[in-house]
């Protein structure tokens, strides 16, 4: 892919260091812990051990136990204390070990963090970042594979973000930590170590071999509410985010279809203009996400494109998603919306008119 399509990030590649997404996320927290004495990082296994995915490795040793520490197994307590710390003036960056485990924190996220600014008319705010690994592809079964982004986008007051690569991961995480709104930061765990394109039977390409694995060492942001044109094209537009960005890219390469791939990056609030401009240009749209289909965020994307691009559309909008079942363990690759299913949707979108 062409790095120069990422127009707003004009940092010279020479100044970039190869990083996995894990290292990029760690670098973002490292930068913010160093820059802002009000930043604290905590969660289950986050302190001494450095997190089950090692995203916080070494941070406790560097910044001390009062700024990077282990939390009890209590998602409600982790987010609830973060809200209280926000009221004090800290910026808590908390980790929920898997997105599948955020449910006990729902009340604190939905009724508290998301609405505190509104209900107190700005007297109190919750500038917190809630990181959580999401998505499947690691044989995690139904409790380590979920993509619950639509549960967050339905909550007014939250920002929901999902990076697809190390460069964006660091820039978006810094932007999220600096943001005065509560941000749900979903990390596609299948992308932690390489740009997985859905071909699970092929060896993993490491991030060190990918241009987006080059990450500046210091402070930079990828602005929230900004999508990226991940791959420019003219035949159809793919609206997607997270792991599915690379799956869509594989489908485009394998079919030879000139697909324009829009990586949402910020799922909600989103960069509507970039999406609308692309769909108006190509006249065809395929929405792809790993999460279950019904009331998934794809439904919102389809509705938005219908509202804003109806007279430009040449064909019905296609949706490729996970099935409406829990994420199975053994049948993971039958569930995962891989490049074959995405390619088929591309063809349908081009055939119909």
């Amino acid at each position, binding site marked *: 892919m062409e790095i120069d399509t990422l127009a707003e990030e004009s940092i010279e590649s020479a100044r970039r260091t190869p990083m996995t997404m894990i290292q990029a996320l760690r670098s973002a927290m490292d930068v913010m812990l160093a820059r802002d004495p009000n930043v604290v990082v905590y969660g289950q296994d986050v302190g001494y051990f450095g997190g089950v995915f090692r995203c916080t490795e070494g941070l406790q040793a560097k910044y001390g136990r009062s700024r990077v520490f282990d939390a009890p197994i209590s998602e*409600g*307590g982790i987010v609830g204390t973060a809200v*209280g710390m926000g009221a004090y003036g800290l910026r808590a960056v908390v980790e929920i070990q898997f997105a599948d485990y955020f449910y006990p924190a729902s009340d604190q996220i939905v009724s508290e963090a998301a609405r505190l600014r509104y*209900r*107190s008319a700005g*007297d*109190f*705010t919750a500038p917190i970042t809630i990181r959580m690994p999401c998505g499947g592809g690691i044989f995690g079964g139904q409790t380590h594979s979920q993509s619950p982004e639509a549960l967050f986008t339905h909550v007014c007051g939250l920002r929901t973000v999902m990076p697809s690569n190390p460069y964006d991961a660091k820039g978006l995480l810094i932007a999220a930590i600096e943001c005065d709104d509560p941000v749900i930061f979903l990390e596609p765990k299948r992308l932690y170590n390489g740009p997985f394109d859905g071909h699970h039977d092929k060896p993993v390409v490491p991030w060190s071999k990918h241009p987006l694995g080059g990450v500046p060492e210091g402070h930079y942001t990828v602005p929230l509410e900004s999508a990226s044109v991940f791959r420019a094209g003219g035949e159809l537009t793919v609206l997607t985010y997270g792991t599915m960005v690379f799956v869509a890219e594989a489908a485009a390469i394998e079919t030879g279809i000139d697909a324009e791939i829009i990586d949402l990056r910020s799922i909600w609030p989103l960069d*509507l203009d970039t999406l609308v401009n692309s769909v108006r240009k190509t006249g065809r749209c395929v929405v792809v996400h790993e999460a279950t289909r019904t009331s998934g965020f794809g439904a919102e994307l389809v509705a938005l494109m219908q509202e804003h691009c109806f007279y430009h559309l040449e064909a019905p909008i296609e949706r490729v998603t996970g099935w409406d079942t829990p994420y199975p363990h053994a049948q993971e690759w039958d569930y995962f919306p891989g490049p074959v299913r995405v390619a088929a949707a591309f063809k349908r979108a081009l055939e119909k008119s």
Partner: protein
Amino acid sequence: MTQHEALHLHVPEPTGRPGRHTDFSYLHLSPAGAARRPPVDTQPVDTSDLAYALVRVLDDEGRALGPWAVQTDPQLLRRGLRAMMKTRIFDARMLLAQRQKKISFYMQCLGEEAIAIAHALALDPGDMCFPTYRQQGLLLARDDVDMVEMICQLLSNERDPMKGRQLPVMYSYKRAGFFSISGNLATQFIQAVGWGMASAIKGDSRIASGWIGDGATAEADFHTALTFAHVYRAPVILNVVNNQWAISTFQAIAGGEATTFAARGVGCGIASLRVDGNDFLAVHAASRWAAERARRNLGPTLIEWVTYRAGPHSTSDDPSKYRPADDYAHFPLGDPIARLKQHLIAIGAWSEQEHEDAQKELEAQVAAAQKEAERYGSLADGHMRSAAEMFEDVYKDMPEHLRRQRQQLGV
């Protein structure tokens, strides 16, 4: 083979119901002055007895007895008495305003005034309370919170500082150490712990004070708060206001039968006290003890305040349907205002005449504040905040989709 009786489910039930007096012996009261006062650096486990006893200072004659009868400035006690009187007058007038349909909803704290007010007077400037909807006394105890503004919130009018977004009584006063009231129960309890942790992380000297009712202790957030407060030795006071009733649900349904709410703290490694919440001196002394523990890095204290919700849960509730109509008259811990008044008169720091004068003066103050607030309108007369403001403060900066929706509304 041993024969067993068939299993049966135990569903707790209060002894009193409409037409049947309550047997208040379930409260297990200790005499005034009987409970010991440990040093503030006591080990949490060594407070076990105090979690089941009842710290009381004032006896039935208004005398201050025992180790918790610490020297208290009569000036502070007079201030506390006036604040309790003011709160009761405020509640009565707002209740009336609700009946006159000027206010959509109200919650009074009748009978519980001593708890919030004595506690507020035991905290330092800068400390932060995370209250429930029944701690208006925390605000009314202060001189820097304008009653007119509070009433504007209740009226949901043009000057409502919450911009019409919150039910009446859901105040927020950061500058007065009063966290925004949620309405979702128990959520603020763990947030208070987080605030205290933040203060400790920053090496500050301020402490947090979290509030919860007996009913909401059944929520996970209560237990989570105890765990986090203990684990991080957070500088926080964890207040459980046991007023016996959660709407129509007796405290035994929340788990108060044959144990105490204070006892939960001891099991979590938290110093815990069970205190007469209608005894201003006991509330003040216990609050000071807990605040000092927190401020000296000795960790959290859980305090169960035993009191009685003398009024309905809210203006939408009718307690005569589920408890004896005259239950409060038989509640053995009495009326906090009458008890402090009796004590102050007994020590020569107050008189019937002063009480009468204060009552009149405070009634006039509250009436004047109400009159002024009503000048700025009410929900009933349509003088409320603009609908355009509905779209503000969802995010710090308004995203595009909210701008579009505001345009669609045409405001």
